[in-house]
């Protein structure tokens, strides 16, 4: 195990070391100690590497992740796994606002709660939140799956495109053009797979599915107030 101490090594050096190791594609394991809520830890990893961060992180941890596996053994600040391409990012604690924003692929696994705007503009990422999510989550979400074992806040899926949202608990309110949809066998299969990948103890049958009513796709003057 390679250990990098963030209280002694600069952020730039830590990220350069991790990025170079990822590029070798040897699937090495790294541990970051003393993160102390620093910003932009383990960003831009482009290759198989396993990074464990021993504590809480600040803004934009694990951004643009590709192929790498990043685990935060604490909570993550705003914008964790932003624009993630593939790989797995696991947050043992809570995630702050806009977790997984614009993510194209991979799995973001949040063991605690996620704050507002979780999965905003997601473009293919899978996000599993074991706790609750805040308001305006999956706003303009285009593709991918958001699975929430707890409750969702206000305006879930506002102006949603083709992302699928699965919530086990209550939904405080749905956003414009987001509606509940029937859960078909293929959705149960998808859920079972995502829950298994995330190590979540829940049954696919307990979830309700939400998606786009597709009423806002084409401009209609009667909907002007909805935009």
């Amino acid at each position, binding site marked *: 195990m390679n250990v990098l101490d963030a209280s002694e090594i600069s952020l730039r050096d830590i990220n350069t070391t991790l990025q170079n190791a990822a590029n070798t594609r040897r699937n090495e394991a790294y541990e970051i100690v003393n993160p*102390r*809520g620093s910003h932009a830890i383990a960003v831009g990893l482009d290759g198989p590497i396993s990074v464990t961060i021993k504590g*809480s992180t*600040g803004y934009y941890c694990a951004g643009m992740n590709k192929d790498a596996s990043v685990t935060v053994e604490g909570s993550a600040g705003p914008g964790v796994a932003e624009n993630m391409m593939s790989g797995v990012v696991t947050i043992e*604690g*809570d995630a702050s*606002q806009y977790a997984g924003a614009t993510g194209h692929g991979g799995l973001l696994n949040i063991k605690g709660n996620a704050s*507002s705007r979780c999965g905003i503009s997601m473009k293919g990422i899978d996000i599993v939140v074991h706790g609750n999510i*805040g*308001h305006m989550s999956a706003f303009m979400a285009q593709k991918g799956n958001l699975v929430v074992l707890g409750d969702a806040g206000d305006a879930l899926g506002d102006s949603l495109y083709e992302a699928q949202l699965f919530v086990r608990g209550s939904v405080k309110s749905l956003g414009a053009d987001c509606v509940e949809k029937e859960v078909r066998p293929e959705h149960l299969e998808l859920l079972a797979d995502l829950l298994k990948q995330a190590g979540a103890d829940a049954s696919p049958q307990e979830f309700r599915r939400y998606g786009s009513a597709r009423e806002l796709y084409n401009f209609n003057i009667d909907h002007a107030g909805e935009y």
Partner: protein
Amino acid sequence: MCGIVGLFLKKDALHPHLGDMLTDMLITMTDRGPDSAGIAIYGEAGDGLKITLQSDTPEVDFAGLKEDLSETLCVPLTLKRVDTHAVLTVPIQAKDAAVAALEDRGLRVMGAGTSMEIYKEVGLPKDVAARFGIREMGGSHGIGHTRMATESAVTTLGAHPFSTADDQCLVHNGSLSNHNQMRRTLARKGVFTKTENDTEVGAAYIASRIEDGTPLGEALEGTLDDLDGFFTFVTGTRNGFGVVRDPIACKPAVMAETDDYVAFASEYRAFADLPGIETARVWEPEPATVYFWER
């Protein structure tokens, strides 16, 4: 951006370390706003009322001020000078006369209260804290702010905290978009602000609601309806502090609680040196919800 910190100590044994802990938290937030910094610190409440005043020319203005005020006010008083600030302690009933006498002399009143003192100046948190010796100050709780100026100039009067009532003050991360309209509305009620600053209007709004007899909690709830814009507000009170975020809540806020303290900050980074933070309960306050932590 702006950075906010708050610390409320549950154990008396920690009180002597308040200034030190709060200073470290605020310095960590420096890169959220390097323009000006300020701290409101709540120490032991004495018999009198403490009025924190400020002057840009303290050498001239504070020389002989104590004797001069004694003569004008005819009450027992003390004056503690700290760099550009001074804390005048007078009997509570002499407050109005004391404030009038200070303003007559062109001095700025930063706030008043039985336990609250406010220190704020242009500059980095580490420099501002050193000028006022914040590290050496004890107390039960305090709030601090480091500013990235948006809505008004970088001046001492534009620095936070802003006093809202005796022993109450406000710090703000965000920007208000209806502050000019609200400033005119308040002026019609006879509540006047001194600067172009948006947060001062927020503070004046809360102060005017309190003046009308509204409890602080309701006045803070009122900000959700009457103030337009982005805000995470932290308000210091005689007994603790309160937090409210606008319904959109894009301005960050994180809280931590242990058996020893309750802490607030714009970012988790500010908590990194707090004792026992590894096992503390850490969470984000909900949007459009008023919280208080008080003894």
